[in-house]
């Protein structure tokens, strides 16, 4: 039995069964999506993580969004590279980037990297549609799904499977 699929399944179940408001879940997922899209190891990703953890949003939904979009983010790299390059190489924006480059700590944000900037812009552009989509989906589908998952004791089953998988792990 693989822990790698049990944990995400447990996380999804927890998101769906938690008594958080759809608003908090949507905010958490959208912020997680933004964090997941941006390549890690830079100040932008750190600031987004701090934002996700500091705001009163659903953390499980945030972690789910982060994991999901971290996995699919490299697929968008060719697109986001072109988007980032277009923004960075555009002549009218050159003074802005030159000015920002002189700001202390700005180099650590790596916003002059084509993929980092492209992914951030893509994430901001997708933010509201994702928030709205998740909000609608949770508001309409979550109570029914949560009820079914509770009836089948999904959390307990997954918890048991996780314990067995850990025990059998070499």
């Amino acid at each position, binding site marked *: 039995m693989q822990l790698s699929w049990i944990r995400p399944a447990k996380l999804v179940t927890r998101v769906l069964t938690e008594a958080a408001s759809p608003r908090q879940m949507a905010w958490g997922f959208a912020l997680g999506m933004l964090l997941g899209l941006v390549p890690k190891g830079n100040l932008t990703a750190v600031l987004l993580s701090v934002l996700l953890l*500091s705001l009163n949003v659903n953390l499980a939904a945030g972690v789910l969004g982060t994991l999901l979009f971290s996995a699919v983010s490299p697929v968008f790299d060719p697109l986001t590279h072109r988007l980032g*390059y277009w923004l960075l190489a555009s002549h009218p924006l050159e003074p802005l980037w030159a000015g920002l480059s002189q700001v202390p700590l700005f*180099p650590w944000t790596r916003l002059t990297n084509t993929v980092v900037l492209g992914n951030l812009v893509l994430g901001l552009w997708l933010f509201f549609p994702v928030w709205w989509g998740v909000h609608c989906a949770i508001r309409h589908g979550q109570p029914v799904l949560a009820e079914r998952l509770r009836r089948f004791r999904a959390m307990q089953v997954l918890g048991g499977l996780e314990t067995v998988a850990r025990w059998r792990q070499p």
Partner: protein
Amino acid sequence: MIRWKYLAPRIVLLLLAVATVWFLLNPGLKYLLERTGRKLLSAKVEIARLHTSLWHTRLQLDGLRVADPKAPMKNLFEADRVELVLDPNALLRGRYVVRRAQVRGLRLGTPREVSGMVEEDGWGLPQVDAERLARQWFERFSLLAKQQIEQEANRLESVRLVREMAQRWPAEYEELKRRAEILKSKAENLRELCRLTPQNPAEAVENYRRVIDELNRLYDEIAQLRGQMEHIGTQIQRDQQALAQAQQRDLQRIDRLLQMDPLSTEGLSQLLLGEEVGPLARRVAGWIAWVQQRIPDEPASAGNPGPQRGIDLLFGPAANQPQWLVESILFDGQLQCGSQQLAFTAAADGLSSDARLYGKPVVVKVSVRGRMTLAAIAELDRTGPEPVTRITVNCPGLVQPERVLGKPGQLALTVSSGSAHLWASLELRGETISGQLLLQQQPV
């Protein structure tokens, strides 16, 4: 909206970390620098005051004294102030850009009130085996010297000629010996033929005819051998002449090489500048050479960037910043030159790991003031395809003692004591050197 339970402890921790750095950075760094310096030099390193500014990435050391490990009652050097200002943004990008470096009030070999010797505390640097290092150096030096001598010897014409003769003459001798042996055996055969007793007159006639034929062939071969011997005789004379001429030319070449010695850097500066200024000029030239050695002609290879997502675009001054760059470095202080105490200032601008990317040449300015004045400016340009070095030296008011140029008793020129003005402007472009050297003295 804000999760204070998460944020508040982290803000407190951050503030604590900032406060710790604020209060402990200067004493901690001072202790670290003193201790590291002490371990590296095995002598006391003292810093009167240290001040750092993280916001401006500036480090300032006041009253730096480094003891001489070989003479504990003397300082290796001391400086009133050492200041280093780094570019914080370049540092965040992993590049080392020194905006300004200053060493003010530098003095060498000053006396100390307290001994600069340090007690061993167990984790010092490993002792250097000087004898082994010296032996290794000597072995390497002797090998290099041997190679150099062999190269020089191979260039001599007489050596080449002697080597060629040493191969040719034994072969010639062997050939002669072989032919002599053949002749000897043929003569033996002929004698045997003469001793034969014929059975009948017809056989006797046939025998005599064979003997006569053999004799004729023997005479021909002896004549050929004699001709070869005569040729060898003339060859020996030609070789002797060639060897004598080669020796003559080699001696002339060696003479020319030996005549270069008086024109060596030390000899020339000694002759032109006298004993007082010569060492100073050599020291200034040494500083310029030191800077020149540290400028790479070719930029270091960036290597394989490895897999990474996207590309980083650089803007503003960062776009043409090399891996390391010293925009300005300045030294000033006192210098002991013979019996004289001289004030000096040395500055270098634009030292970088990639001059082509930086696009500016390195400028070194050295100025010495005291009983005499010396100013030197060197521009080391590595931005083009060919390295170019321009050096200008100005040394007015040189007090010159009376000198004799040439050999007294033969042809010699006596120059009376007086005040001289030395000015030189040289340009080194690749392997060629050009320029002007002017030495003016009143009265001569």
